[in-house]
């Protein structure tokens, strides 16, 4: 009763909390909606198979679930035989996917699905596609292609495969994408099976059949029906979804933390403003627990209301966000917004929870209000620093300093996280310790004006800020956070961008590479044509680890005679440690064709990115993985070939690496921009709120000043210059809090790349963050002051 009534009456005090929750839940709802909308749906290419049996997924070295463990051809044949025996199964079809790409005028026809565009003709029965012309492939030199290629039946078509280019006769066309070869040809091109489709006549009991299939496959895989079949999709789609999820996921996490922070700050302020009323409640018999429940109840109600509005905002904003992700090319093709209940319910739960969490501190300080405060005349300013604030501020500051050193000396993988951790600590410490910092800074900054000016302005600003440091700190804190985050994010991106070219130049100087152009990789033919240079053939190897189950690792087929003996493998120290083996031991791996082979560990060498961590002979890899493609061939510039095979391009290695990096950087830039906007927007909200609360709390002060002869203009100037000064102080503190982390990153990168890396700040972002906070804060302050001084007719 009390909580709800308080919100009705003091809605102004809860407005900022409400808005923070609306924005936070809006962003989180958008994330959930996009995640839900982007969940895999059955691809048309396998949609006509009611049951898909897939093998289990292995985990990678970090523990993330990745590639499916392939069945060997004989294991697969055995499964097919058993599935065929299930009542109601009309056909059992092994689905094969391999690299196939049309060439026109000796150039590969661009196709992002090329890596898995080749299939066996029987796979077409799994699809919703039908023949539109001609007939099925009957000979191994015949192929059915999608009509989207625009090649009529009967024509000859050069098709790039992993071993090189071949000319096929188009025996027919189909209304879907892809290249459908004879099943025999497909089995040669993709050995090893991860997906088997079951066709059943219409009206058959699909779930019964799936259950039977599931029990046949046992622990080695699962039988999927309905929407669950969506996981069978080309890798490039999975990758795009992953990128998009990372982008909006980071934004949602940022929104989550900032919402908690803003809610905590605004509610803490709202509580200090009503100490007297809380004192009254304590006097007439409320115990601290009840006060606490009241504050938390208020937060829960505001959180719930804000969540509902936030969900609506999220529903409206989702299409726009999808469009911008589409522009970045990080959404699965044909994505559309689907609104279902769970994203909205989850966002509401998160929003309400976040509000209650943010109210935690406020509720504790409210519960500590003594009943006698109901009798005190004015809400006197508390001590600038409570003991808890001192302890927390110094502890976090110490942690930040330790982390800053660790950032500088730590290894590359941990550095980014350490840098972010350092900044978060220092920013929090700056916000907590702001009251003690503000005093000397204000004294210093206003001293020249106070001495010289004859007006009241400078004297008042100085006195107000020096004597209400806690209020001043609550204005400066959000600015510290916003500017800190803006500087950190943009600074990290820029500093790393400076470091990367330096490192690349050093490593790749004087090298060229042959790159496949529009194709996903170079064929064996292209590799044979260029016998000089590094031509790694990457493959995936599966190792059964006793404690962690099936694990997938990157294997590299090398043509370097030093480590390409059949039956042997060369490991680097990291991999040897991971697999717990030493030189001379035997590792048993499962290849992409599903065959299990023991390999002798010939050598264990220090890590070298150019060599790889698990090196095999190129021929061994090709023997077991017909789908593998060489990414590119590196060589010294003077060894560059005069003639290149179809589609391949000769590139300056350095140039190429930078271009690749810039593609990634575009994504990072977008992420950085989104995060900065969120951070600045939130802090603007928090500053506006604390200005507003402070302004209303100072009603009597203003009345006194007015009666002492201050004009409305003078008081407005006072409020605005006070706020402006605080925003500037907050900006400087935010900047200072971020520099140690950036310096740590720069010095770590310097050591690693062996080049001079200095901290780079993005001036634009910094200016934008400071000006944004300044405009929002002064506008709020001016509005509130004007509103408070307005003559009232009551």
């Amino acid at each position: 009763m009390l909580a709800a009534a308080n919100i009705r009456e003091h809605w102004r005090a809860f407005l900022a909390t409400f808005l923070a929750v609306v924005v936070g839940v809006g962003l989180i709802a958008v994330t959930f909606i996009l995640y839900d909308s982007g969940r895999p749906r059955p691809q048309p290419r396998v949609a006509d198979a009611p049951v898909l049996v897939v093998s289990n997924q292995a985990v990678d070295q970090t523990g993330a679930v990745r590639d499916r463990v392939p069945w060997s051809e004989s294991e697969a044949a055995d499964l097919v035989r058993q599935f065929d025996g299930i009542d109601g199964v009309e056909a059992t079809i092994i689905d094969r996917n391999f690299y196939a790409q049309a060439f026109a005028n000796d150039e590969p026809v661009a196709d992002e699905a090329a890596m898995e565009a080749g299939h066996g003709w029987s796979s077409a029965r799994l699809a919703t596609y039908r023949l539109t012309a001609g007939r099925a492939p009957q000979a191994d030199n015949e192929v059915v292609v999608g009509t989207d290629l625009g090649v009529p039946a009967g024509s000859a078509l050069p098709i790039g495969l992993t071993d090189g280019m071949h000319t096929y006769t188009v025996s027919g066309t189909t209304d879907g994408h892809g290249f459908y070869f004879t099943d025999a040809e497909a089995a040669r091109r993709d050995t090893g099976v991860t997906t088997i489709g079951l066709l059943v006549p219409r009206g058959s009991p699909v779930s019964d059949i799936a259950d039977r299939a599931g029990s046949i496959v046992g622990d080695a895989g699962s039988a999927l029906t309905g929407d669950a079949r969506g996981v069978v999709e080309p890798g490039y789609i999975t990758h795009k979804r992953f990128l998009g999820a990372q982008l909006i996921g980071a934004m949602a996490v940022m929104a989550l933390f900032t919402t908690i922070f803003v809610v905590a700050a605004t509610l803490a302020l709202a509580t200090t403003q009503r100490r007297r009323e809380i004192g009254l409640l304590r006097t007439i018999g409320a115990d601290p627990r009840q006060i606490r429940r009241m504050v938390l109840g208020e937060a829960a109600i505001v959180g719930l209301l804000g969540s509902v509005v936030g969900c609506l905002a999220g529903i409206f904003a989702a299409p726009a966000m999808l469009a911008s992700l589409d522009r970045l090319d990080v959404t699965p093709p044909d994505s559309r917004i689907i609104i279902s209940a769970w994203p909205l319910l989850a966002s509401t739960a998160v929003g309400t929870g976040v509000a209650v969490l943010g109210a935690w501190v406020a509720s504790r300080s409210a519960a500590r209000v003594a009943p006698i405060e109901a009798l005190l005349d004015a809400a006197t300013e508390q001590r600038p620093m409570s003991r808890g604030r001192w302890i927390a501020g110094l502890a976090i500051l110490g942690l930040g300093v330790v982390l800053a050193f660790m950032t500088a000396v730590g290894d590359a993988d941990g550095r980014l996280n350490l840098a972010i951790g350092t900044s978060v600590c220092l920013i929090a410490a700056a916000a907590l310790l702001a009251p003690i910092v503000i005093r000397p800074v204000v004294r210093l900054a206003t001293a020249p004006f106070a001495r010289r000016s004859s007006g009241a302005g400078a004297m008042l600003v100085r006195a107000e800020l020096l004597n209400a440091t806690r209020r001043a700190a609550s204005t400066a804190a959000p600015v510290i956070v916003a500017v800190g985050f803006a500087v950190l994010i943009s600074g990290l991106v820029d500093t790393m961008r400076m470091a990367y070219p330096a490192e690349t130049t050093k490593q790749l100087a004087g090298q060229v590479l042959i790159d496949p152009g529009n194709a996903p990789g170079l064929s064996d033919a292209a590799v044979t044509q260029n016998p000089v240079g590094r031509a790694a053939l990457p493959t995936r190897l599966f190792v059964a680890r006793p404690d962690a189950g099936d694990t997938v690792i990157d294997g590299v087929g090398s043509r370097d005679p030093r480590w390409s003996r059949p039956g042997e493998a060369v490991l680097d120290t990291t991999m040897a440690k991971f697999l717990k083996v030493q030189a001379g031991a035997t590792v048993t791996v499962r290849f992409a064709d599903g065959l299990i082979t023991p390999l002798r560990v010939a050598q264990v060498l220090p890590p070298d990115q150019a060599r790889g961590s698990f090196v095999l002979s190129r021929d061994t890899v090709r023997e077991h993985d017909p789908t593998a493609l060489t990414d590119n061939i590196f060589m010294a510039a003077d060894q560059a070939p005069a003639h290149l095979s179809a589609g391949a391009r000769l590139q300056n290695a350095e140039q190429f690496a930078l271009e690749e990096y810039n593609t990634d950087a575009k994504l990072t830039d977008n992420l950085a921009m989104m995060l900065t906007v969120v951070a600045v927007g939130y802090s603007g909200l928090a500053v506006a709120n604390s200005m507003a609360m402070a302004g209303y709390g100072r009603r009597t002060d203003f009345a006194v000043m007015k009666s002492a002869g201050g004009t409305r203009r003078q008081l407005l100037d006072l409020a605005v210059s006070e706020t402006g000064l605080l925003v500037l102080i907050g900006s400087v503190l935010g900047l200072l809090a971020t520099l140690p982390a950036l310096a740590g990153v720069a010095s770590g990168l310097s050591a690693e790349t062996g080049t001079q890396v200095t901290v780079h700040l993005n001036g634009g972002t910094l200016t934008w963050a400071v000006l944004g906070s300044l405009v929002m804060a002064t506008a709020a302050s001016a509005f509130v002051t004007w509103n408070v001084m307005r003559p009232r007719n009551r």
Partner: protein
Amino acid sequence: MHKVYQRGTQEVQALDGVSIGFPTGTFTAIMGPSGSGKSTLLQCAAGLDEPSAGQIFVAGADISGMDERQRTALRRDRIGFVFQAFNLVASLTAAQNVELPLRFAGRRPDRAEVTRALSAVGLGERTGHRPSELSGGQQQRVALARALITRPDVLVADEPTGALDTKTSREVLSLLRLLVDQQSQTTLMVTHDPVAASYADVVIFLKDGRIADRLELDPTDGSKPSRIAAQMARLEA
């Protein structure tokens, strides 16, 4: 009872050996110049503050040894409060304000009981109004109704008419007097207004943390306010 405050490095003797009893059913006014310790006495007696030394009994129970939890329950169940201003929760209606102590105690308020309490202070018609829709005197009467809803042993009033004009002051004071006469409501009132004090049975004068004087009032005496004022003037001199 002693009460010592620490103000900076200085020790301030707010109450310096005060020993006093307030019999059931009496109306006592506490007066004194500012800084005399009258508010401290009231706050200690009402369990809002703890004495540095000494004991306080409310309805037979020693409250000086109570912890904050017990004192919360004491304030809720045994003591009713009326202050100078800001007496009501702005967001609640008059009726909700009155039932608040019952709700804090975890009792379901009886609507008739609340209406009766408001009628007793002449506000039976205004149960649904918010404080902002009530005059200062009406607000103070709602506060009185709330203070009495738990049938407290002691009613504590700190400058209850300090923010009211003469006419509404008189209404509120008459109401207090009526409660003492009809329901034997033990009442303690701190005031600096001789007219307000004249409604009491006894006036206690404090100076420098000690009881300086005590004045028994005769209900039939018409010149009470001027006698009290004269006494105050002597103390402040």
